[in-house]
């Protein structure tokens, strides 16, 4: 299927995606073949249902949030380019990329962008702030029915207290980055893509 699928992907498109995401040529064609096999509607885009059909993702407590990260606000289809753009957040940071100091724009797999991906999992209404309510909702997704409301509430309170520096009882992206500054984001938010 791989090469049959790749013939549908134009060389220019591959080049464009390569430039934007940093994936190699063969990674792009192989991911395209994966994309088409997920695309049950065969219309060149993926819907939320297409993602939910992956059993391992369906049992992931944050599965719905992760799927959501693929869809820009208000849209319910994602094309191959958008698909690749989101996946690119999880490319490991290579040594040569660190030194390059690209002036134009930050690569998708930078530490900041990786953190932004995580931040948006919590930021349900996309207002660039995590409120106590949002944090509670995401916590509830992660723990299911196993923890009581009071206990979850105190966890949320404590988490916000720890992170909040300006006293608005919300976590902004700056505060989010500050809390996680000691975490090895580069490694923990990366997947080992093979050639």
């Amino acid at each position: 299927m791989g090469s049959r699928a790749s013939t549908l992907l134009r060389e220019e498109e591959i080049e464009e995606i390569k430039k934007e995401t940093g994936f190699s040529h063969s990674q792009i064609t192989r991911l395209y073949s994966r994309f088409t096999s997920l695309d049950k509607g065969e219309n060149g885009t993926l819907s939320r249902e297409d993602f939910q059909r992956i059993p391992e993702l369906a049992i992931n407590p944050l599965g719905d949030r992760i799927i959501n990260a693929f869809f820009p606000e208000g849209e319910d289809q994602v094309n191959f380019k958008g698909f690749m753009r989101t996946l690119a957040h999880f490319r490991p940071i290579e040594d040569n990329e660190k030194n390059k100091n690209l002036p134009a724009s930050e690569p998708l797999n930078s530490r900041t962008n990786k953190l932004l991906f995580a931040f948006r999992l919590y930021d349900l209404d996309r207002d660039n702030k995590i409120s106590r309510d949002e944090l509670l909702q995401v916590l509830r997704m992660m723990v299911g029915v196993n923890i009581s409301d009071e206990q979850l509430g105190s966890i949320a309170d404590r988490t916000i207290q720890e992170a909040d520096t300006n006293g608005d009882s919300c976590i902004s992206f700056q505060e989010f980055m500050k809390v996680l500054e000691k975490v090895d984001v580069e490694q923990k938010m990366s997947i080992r893509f093979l050639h």
Partner: protein
Amino acid sequence: MEDFWAGVLWALRIWLYLIISLIMIPAMFGFSLGISETYMTILVKTLEWATLSIQKANAEEEKVNASASNGLIQREGGSMEKELEELRRSRPKPPEGGDFTLSDCFYFSRRGIESIVDDEVTQRFTSEELVSWNLLTRTNNDFQYISLKLTLVYGLGIFVRYCILAPLRITLACIGLTWLVIGTSAVGFLPNSRVKFWLSEWVHVMCYRICARGLSATIHYHNRENKPKKGGICVANHTSPIDIVILCNDGCYAMVGQVHGGLMGILQRAMVRSCPHVWFERSEMKDRHLVTKRLKDHVNDKTKLPILIFPEGTCINNTSVMMFKKGSFEIGATIYPVAIKYDPKFGDAFWNSSKYSMVSYLLRMMTSWALVCNVWYLPAMHQQEGEDAVHFANRVKSAIAHQGGLIDLQWDGGLKRAKVKDTFKEQQQKKYSSMVVGDDSSGNSD
């Protein structure tokens, strides 16, 4: 004009005689004239040569593709506990209020994205990916122009497969199936006696042998001493309906299944006349007790053939074994596990039932190079004391996966069509909760 038709008739006659004398008769009595062996040797040589020339043509590219068969990503196999532990190392455990950090979502995101890129389940329901092109245009390695020589061989291959092998195989399959219907119906008229059993077995095996020749099947049986015996249940991994032909080439089994319509229905009705297969009506299938009871009755009758069951309940692409349904393990009979592994080099044996109909699948098989497969009979297994059916089923599954060199998966093959059950997600949530608040308090809130 008359001369022409006489010529055609004459050619057809010769064709039939040749088939009968060279293939049918040997097949009936289970010996071989060495024609298929010669064909296989030539085939293996050709494919080896093709692989070599492909490698030579893109020696540097090949290095990149070497990892292609291993998937797109390399997963880190750490458990949830271990990974979250690592994530939390950077901060001390708070004295109260539960252990949660904002970075916990890293674990779930990475797992989630990994499963989007490359998951264990859905890819088992599509054709296996091959490392190198096998001169067929129907795998991940589509037609590639490498050299003129190779293209010529490919063209010749098309001619041989479609113009010589395909008509031959279709004729054989038709004869085989007709024989099966006529033979079993005829045997069915005989009174129940040892002669009838013997004749019925002979007719069955003979027809399956003819059908197997119709697929150019080369089957290697291993450990024949463990062959399923009467009064037991034979369980095998399932790749395609052809599995039945493969297994029945070496002995007869009682089939279990739903009554079908059409061609399958005719076959089923004919077969049940000569020997006791267990067919269920669609409505009966839902009644689990009835199914279990009829299977039990069959197994308890020591004169009846061993039952053949594919407990996965669906066709998997021959790279892995998926969850075994526990039904056949509840009966308490001796289980004879059998592992079947096809060689994907010669053609893709997997029946992707959501993509191809039965007939178009068979036509694809008949226009492939050949069907090469290994069958391992494993030692009989019994349910141990205190072991429930689910564990027993898992134990048998692992044994089959290990022997066949297949990946042992816990997932249900039913996911091909159905959605995953919520309980699996609840398990994940429970596991995570116990990481947050500790085991004891999660127990309280249940």
